[in-house]
């Protein structure tokens, strides 16, 4: 009788729930593990978004600089410049066209407008800043690749440009990726005046 009365109590003991201590420990360990997993996931997702943005920005900048390099090298002269909105107007006398590069601070786009095309082309999107400097053909002595500043567009032989493009995800607080590019392009067909 004693043995048989023991039997159900043993079964009840085995199928009983967990103790409070066990539950607390399990909760603690579980939440730590979950926190670690969540951190890794968020960190990973942010990093991969940043990497994607960086490569997209670099790709865009590369394509932009390639196109501008090709066109400015072939241009025969710089006609005019503008500071607000920032713009450079080149002429290609051999092709009989003018090319206008303009940066719009509101739309954050750098565009190229060709006189023989009705639509302008967008070279850079998300362009935070675009600046240029104009140089003459005469180099300074005892320096490396430093030239006299061009005081008028027709003296310009070398264009120095830099721009900054950025992309944000969920506003700047979550993620802000930036790409900065510089380019020096010689107007190869520009003749001395």
């Amino acid at each position: 009788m004693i043995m048989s009365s023991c039997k159900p109590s043993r079964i009840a003991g085995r199928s009983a729930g967990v103790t409070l201590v066990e539950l607390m420990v399990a909760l603690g360990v579980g939440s730590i593990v979950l926190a670690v997993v969540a951190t890794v996931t968020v960190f990973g997702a942010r990093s991969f978004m940043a990497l994607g943005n960086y490569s997209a920005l670099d790709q865009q900048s590369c394509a932009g600089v390639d196109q501008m390099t090709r066109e400015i090298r072939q241009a025969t002269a710089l006609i005019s410049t503008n500071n607000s909105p920032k713009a450079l107007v080149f002429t290609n006398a051999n092709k009989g066209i003018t090319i206008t590069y303009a940066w719009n601070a509101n739309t954050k786009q750098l565009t190229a407008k060709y006189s023989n095309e009705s639509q302008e082309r967008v070279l850079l999107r998300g362009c935070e800043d675009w600046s240029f400097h104009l140089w003459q053909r005469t180099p300074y002595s005892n320096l490396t690749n430093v030239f006299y500043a061009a005081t008028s567009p027709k003296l310009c032989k070398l264009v120095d440009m830099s721009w900054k493009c950025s992309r944000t995800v969920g506003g700047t607080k979550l993620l802000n990726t930036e790409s900065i590019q510089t380019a020096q392009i010689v107007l190869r067909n520009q003749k001395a005046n």
Partner: protein
Amino acid sequence: MRILTEPRKARLSAYTLTEVMVSVGIIGVLFVSLYLAFSAGFTVIRVARENLRATQILVQREETVRLYTWSQLTDPTYFKTNFVDNFAPLGTTYYGNITLSQPANMGSPSYLSDIRTVTLTVRWTNSIGSKLPHIRQMQTQVAHYGLQNYVFGGTAP
């Protein structure tokens, strides 16, 4: 009955310390390799961006080399050969220099002394990790009598 319950109790018991340690070790290795894969990926992207910037620097220096006349370019006091450039977003500094040399593998034509091979070099170190030194080079050739049209618009210097 008591004797019978002994083996059942043993079967229901939790993991042994060894089992737990082994599993913790395996999970640790998995996490470490996950993080290493992450950081290796970031390093690859970073190096690619640094390389891209190095290429830009070389191209833009090379672009302006041809604006120098032959006498300016070959005059070491006129044409300074060292330069420093940087990549602001990553804080990388590039140290460059330009060397002029007699072209190699051209034989010895009579105009050999009127040609120079221009070698542009940039060096930089990775600012993270092992400070791995990097070096990139670009070469072009300039000729004594080949620049007038480009620089002076058809008039001889």
